[in-house]
């Protein structure tokens, strides 16, 4: 379970996040929705111990990420692509990650299979297409068989098969009792996959709750989103 309370971050005079509250419960897929620059990535980076907040807390099972013993066995994450050095092979990249958290070597082959990259294990990351790079990032997130998955815009760059595979993976993970927090700005995907939704705009949470609650009173999630984030109603599709 992931809990974020009254999270705030300023950079100089710029307010990036203000008073953000968010809970991602086990057994559910929580979607984090918002326009570009709303603070989704900033929130996730703080949750994963990469950046420091100015105020508030972001906890994984009640503890800070940095205090977790083998964090990848508790939280698997993917931010902006694979985060791999382009000169390394996919297997080598996963190998050092596995070693760092005491994850058995066999998991490398298993996750490559799971994301459909088994044939590209010995390929250089630098030669991967956008979609392949993302799949590698997903593989890394799954390495430690974590209870929670934190995915930043996971569908970006995936082809139709990849999207479907991801959707299945995410739903299965939640169905098995795991926690999933994913950020996105694709309405269709969120509507198809999410149980709970948190909408953020301008660094502040503007709506949170089950999907049905957030869309109540609006024709669709897309309409609800635009209404909540203060955009003009889109005319037509």
């Amino acid at each position, binding site marked *: 379970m992931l809990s974020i309370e009254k999270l705030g971050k300023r950079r100089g005079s710029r307010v990036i996040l203000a008073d953000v509250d968010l809970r991602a419960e086990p057994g559910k897929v929580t979607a984090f929705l918002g326009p570009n620059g709303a603070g989704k990535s900033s929130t996730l980076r703080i949750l994963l*111990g990469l950046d420091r907040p100015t105020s508030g807390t972001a906890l994984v099972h009640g503890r800070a990420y940095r205090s977790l013993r083998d*964090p990848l066995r508790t939280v698997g994450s993917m931010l902006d692509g694979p985060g791999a*050095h382009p000169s*390394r092979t996919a297997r080598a990249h996963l190998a*050092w990650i596995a070693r760092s958290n005491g994850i058995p070597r066999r998991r490398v082959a298993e996750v490559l299979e799971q994301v459909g990259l088994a044939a590209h294990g010995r390929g250089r990351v630098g030669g991967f297409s956008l979609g392949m790079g993302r799949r590698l990032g997903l593989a890394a997130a799954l390495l430690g068989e974590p209870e929670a998955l934190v995915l930043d815009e996971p569908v970006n760059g995936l082809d139709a098969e990849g999207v479907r595979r991801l959707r299945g993976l995410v739903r299965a993970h939640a169905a098995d009792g795991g926690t999933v927090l994913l950020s996105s700005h694709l309405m269709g995907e969120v509507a198809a996959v999410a149980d709970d939704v948190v909408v953020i705009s301008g660094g502040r949470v503007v709506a949170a709750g089950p999907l049905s609650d957030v869309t109540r009173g609006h024709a669709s999630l897309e309409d609800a989103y635009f209404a909540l984030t203060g955009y003009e109603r889109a005319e037509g599709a």
Partner: protein
Amino acid sequence: MRPRLPRIVTAELLKLATLPVVLSTGVATIAAAPVLAALSGAAAGTHAFGIVAGTVPFLQVGPILLGVLAAGGEYTGGQVRTTLTAMPRRLPVLAGKSAAALLVLLATGTAAAAAGAVTARSGRAPAFGSVHVAMGIVAHLVAMGLLALALAVLLRSVLRPLAALLTLVFVASPLLGGLTEKAYLLPDQAGRLLHDPLPGTTPGTWTGVVVLLAWLTGVGAAATAAFLVRDA
């Protein structure tokens, strides 16, 4: 929370071993040592290790590049994020990375010094020479490599610390060496004192050790502070 240092060190060693340019640099350094020893213009009768000591100004490029790659490589492809989500406590990460680099530098430095010495010995050197000189050579190489690592952590890049250290070693140091007696305060000149001290009243080996440690501590402390505090 007790850090899993052995695991971190192994992960960092794996990273170094699977980066092609790191392997090439190591091999090239070890291969360059005999060539440099053969080209060396050392006086007749110099011992083998003495000849190798003369080649250190050029040989240290290898360790410098290794150090820069060990840390600077994190900032290619955004790998630093992956490293910090896998190993979120930063001090152990830095310590583990430095330890892994130290092992690689020791191995490369020793192999290079040995290769150079064997070549020199089979050439015109009458004897191998003192073990102290050999240790001084390896210490110099390792120290420059660690200094490069610290600078790369500080600058978060590969090319910048590389250009800076190459300028120090090939331009600033020879220049200042000719202009002032205090040039031994520069790290590579201090390193020279470890294996090639000038005779007479000039500073000796232990001065070199102190100066080198001071540089490593200073730049290392700045790098550590930056790494601990900065956003990824």
